[in-house]
């Protein structure tokens, strides 16, 4: 998990990210910054595959599309996800649409991860960490990231194919980059049929299709170029998405994302820049069980989410300080309902998210202080207030059955504060950090209504009386380089001590709604819980063209009585040999998990057996008629092992052997 640390430190030219073990970034598109993390599949990789490159990140798979990022073994509830600082909230009560599924690789420059409480300024409720999806902006003439360094016209194409599931990827984009105006627009399309698990058996309902269209643009308002207006528009539509781990699929998952920002660059003085962005997004999510055989009761389960907000970020540098101050405000509405159609009888209707309006406003300050050339202290703090109102009366009265005294509006105050101290001596770096943070219960946790969870087969009911969850985080990291930096070894650990940990608790008094469900759980606060994540990384430059790297990680999560929490990664390892010969790059990777020993039996989890797979990948970059081309090819799960990981929902098997090839062209 600390490849991060090494990468960050080994590439001092990296100006986007500060060198901290708490920050990680995966590059989606960039000509520069070799040595930084990127997917072996390049731009053709899915957002999920890009996310998988990040340290601290695991992915929960419910199918071959829309995986849910888990940071430090904490899922969506404890992770903040923003798109270029914009808040966006998923619209499916069954978490079939983590917000990362509403963007496409071509929309992004990179994905930035802040581990733990040390969140980016716009994030709230990020106990586990925060992800910010950085949009790809062509930039003004001369700053273009594309082959044409002088600006003007440009563009790119990407075509890819994977044999397993017959996955097809097509992308095209065009760029206009002038000194006072830029725009980059693109289309992206993916289509996949059912994939085959190791051994060759088809996994039914694992298909998907996705279209994405986007545009980014910017104007310089003045000749000097210190005032910039930028805008973004993304339309993303996934259709016919299968979820083999669930009882139903998705007919449509559609997002519309738009923003407009104004940035002023200060020429002199303490302040660097002041950016204010207004944004709006809405998501429509429609589930579909009509294609499933043996459906006992056909159901319609649509969900809607829309968010509107703004943030204003001021950055400054002076003396030893690098300061960021941010104000943000957003309003989100979440509504979902369910209609069940028993053959012949009257339909049954319930509101599963009672049109909850959340108004949240917060103030964040980050300060990075260079004490000496060797010592740095980073301080981050955020304070936010939140008001929630249940706008749907039917949903509100239904919840009142379970919580007779509940109100139709609630408010919460949340905050976080974290500090990190970093010391560099000779060939080693040391870092320690501590923080405290809290989060408000999510809409599902507070007001969700009979949400069936196929993982443990329980119906979940929200609890409006939940207390805020909070955690104290301690983290440390150490890195040593020896043999003239030929070998670097890092250790990285963090621990979270939770108070009022929110989790579904058995409520035997209640009867499940879903046919076949085991029972009902109501969200409740555990007085405390503990989570520890550790990682060891070794990178060895055996020869100038040959490197070997290994990463081992282990995590523990325990509830208030010392029982294992669910969905905590078992011992995991990755080991790879990478060889770089001029424009050819090859990589052989072995990765696997040990048997899951500490699994959340109490919470309905079963143990996942050990597995190991072998991946091979290669990349060849060349020029043709003045265009830069990159050909990537490889094979995943070379030995066609049938396996599933601890985070595969209901143990759905992973892909079997899969050959991929893709070609990207810069025009």
């Amino acid at each position, binding site marked *: 998990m600390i490849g991060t640390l090494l990468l960050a430190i080994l590439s001092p030219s990296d100006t986007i990210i500060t060198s901290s073990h708490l920050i990680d970034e995966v590059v989606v598109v960039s000509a520069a910054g070799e040595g930084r993390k990127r997917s072996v599949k390049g731009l053709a990789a899915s957002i999920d595959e890009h996310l998988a490159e990040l340290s601290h990140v695991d992915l929960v798979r419910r199918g071959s599309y829309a995986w849910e990022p888990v940071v430090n073994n904490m899922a969506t509830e404890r992770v903040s996800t923003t798109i270029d600082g914009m808040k966006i909230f998923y619209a499916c009560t069954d978490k079939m649409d983590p917000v990362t599924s509403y963007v496409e690789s071509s929309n992004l420059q990179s994905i930035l991860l802040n581990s733990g409480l040390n969140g980016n300024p716009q994030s709230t409720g990020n106990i586990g960490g925060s992800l910010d999806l950085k949009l790809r902006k062509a930039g003004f003439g001369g700053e273009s990231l594309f082959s044409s360094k002088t600006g003007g016209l440009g563009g790119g194409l990407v075509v890819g194919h994977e044999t397993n599931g017959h996955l097809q990827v097509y992308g095209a984009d065009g760029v206009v980059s002038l000194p006072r105006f830029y725009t980059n627009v693109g289309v992206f399309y993916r289509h996949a049929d059912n994939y085959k698990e190791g051994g060759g058996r088809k996994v039914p309902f694992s298909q998907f299709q996705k279209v994405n269209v986007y545009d980014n643009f910017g104007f310089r308002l003045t000749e000097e170029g210190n005032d910039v207006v930028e805008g973004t528009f993304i339309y993303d539509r996934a259709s016919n998405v299968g979820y083999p781990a669930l009882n139903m699929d998705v007919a449509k998952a559609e997002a519309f994302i738009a923003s407009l920002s104004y940035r002023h660059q200060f020429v002199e003085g303490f302040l660097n820049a002041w950016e204010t962005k207004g944004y709006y997004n809405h998501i429509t999510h429609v589930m579909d069980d009509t294609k499933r055989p043996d459906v006992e009761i056909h159901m319609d389960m649509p969900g809607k989410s829309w968010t509107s907000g703004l943030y204003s970020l001021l950055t400054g540098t002076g003396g030893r300080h690098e300061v960021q101050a941010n104000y943000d405000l957003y309003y989100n509405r979440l509504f979902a309902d369910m209609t069940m159609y*028993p053959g012949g*009888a009257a339909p049954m209707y*319930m*509101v599963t998210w009672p049109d909850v309006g959340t108004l949240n406003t917060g103030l964040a300050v980050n300060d990075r202080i260079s004490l000496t050339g060797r010592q740095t202290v980073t301080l981050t703090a955020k304070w936010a207030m939140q008001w929630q109102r249940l706008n749907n009366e039917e949903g509100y009265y239904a919840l009142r*059955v379970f919580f007779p005294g509940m109100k139709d509006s609630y408010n919460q105050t949340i905050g976080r504060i974290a500090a990190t101290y970093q010391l560099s001596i000779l060939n080693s770096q040391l870092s320690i950090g501590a923080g405290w943070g809290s989060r408000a219960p999510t809409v599902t946790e507070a007001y969700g209504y*009979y949400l069936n969870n196929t993982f443990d087969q329980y119906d979940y009911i929200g609890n409006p009386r939940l207390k805020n969850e909070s955690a104290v985080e301690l983290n440390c990291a150490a890195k040593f380089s020896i043999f003239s930096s030929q070998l670097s070894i890092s250790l990285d650990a963090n621990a979270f001590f939770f108070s009022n940990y929110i989790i579904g608790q058995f409520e035997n008094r*209640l*009867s*499940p709604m879903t046919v*076949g469900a085991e029972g009902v759980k109501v969200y409740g606060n555990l007085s405390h819980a503990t989570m520890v994540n550790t990682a060891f990384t070794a990178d060895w430059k055996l020869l100038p063209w040959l490197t070997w790297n290994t990463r081992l990680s282990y995590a523990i999560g325990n509830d208030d009585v010392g029982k294992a929490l669910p969905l905590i990664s078992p011992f995991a390892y990755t080991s790879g040999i990478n060889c770089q010969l001029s424009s050819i790059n090859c990589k052989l990777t072995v990765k696997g998990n040990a048997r899951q020993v500490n699994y959340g039996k109490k919470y309905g989890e079963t143990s996942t057996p050990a597995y190991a797979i072998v991946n091979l990948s290669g990349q060849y970059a060349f020029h043709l008629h003045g265009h830069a081309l990159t050909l990537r090819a490889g094979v995943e799960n070379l030995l066609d092992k049938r396996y599933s990981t601890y985070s595969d929902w209901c143990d759905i098997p992973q892909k079997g052997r899969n050959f991929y090839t893709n070609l990207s062209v810069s025009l």
Partner: protein
Amino acid sequence: MNKKVLMLFLAIASLGLVSCNSNDDETGIVIDGIDLTSDVDCCSAEEALQVYRFIQTVHIIPELSTSVDGKYDVWAYTKTGTLHRGYNDLYFVVTKKKSGNYVKNFNIKNVTPLMHMVKMDMWHSTPVGGTFEVFDTTRPAVKRGWVSLLMNTSDAGNWQFSYDIEVLGSKGGVEKQAINVEALPEGQDWLKNFKVGDDTYFLSLVNPSDWKTGTNTIQAYISKKSTPATTPYALATETFTIEIDPRMPDMGNHTSPDNVALTKQQDGSYTGTINLTMTGLWRIHLTVKDSKGNIVAGGDDLKDGFSSLYWDVTL
């Protein structure tokens, strides 16, 4: 039949449109078709307005409306303008023909629905609420009572309705008026009976169509079959408790928590609490206990584990 054309309403005093109408009555209330001139027998303008507003929420049953002595019109209402199997609220309003205003004092008596069983050529009555009374003091001219009709009209049998009315010394009524009783749609069954010894009791569930998802008050009446059966069935004098177990048969017999058994109230009705977690068909399984706690009806566990005595309500 007369329609309620006589009642079109506008309260427009605040708009300054008050004409030199003697209806004015200081309050500025004007109801089209009603002379609100002070009349001790009738409603004040404010009361008349309340009655008028109430009438907008119900519908006339033409068959049960009549006139008395050529001086008064008697209007019978139900929520839908029809009668259906099971419990029906029945409202009466009397107007003076001359002024159109609502008469405050009148008595409805001897409400007697009779069913003619065609095959056997036999007659029987049905549960009827004791007296027809003012149920809301803001509307002193509306009297309410109820009938719970055992069956709907069909080839097997049909209904006749009678009642007596006394208005300010004049007498009248309706005598053996044929009236249609509609069946309830599929998934609605609001009237059940049980036997204790030789006595037959009827369980009439009150207006479940008003229920919504969430917590609802559940009200019912227990009536006892009369001898002879042509006498309207009065409320049972015994005290029972009705335990309820609401289930959704289409949803694997899903149930809701914290339901409260129906217990006898001062007005003779039985009241409890029912929680409904969603819309759809709810089968409310019943266990009726006597005052000593002995089960007298229902509470038998059939092979599905539930009582055979139940009401069906579809939300």
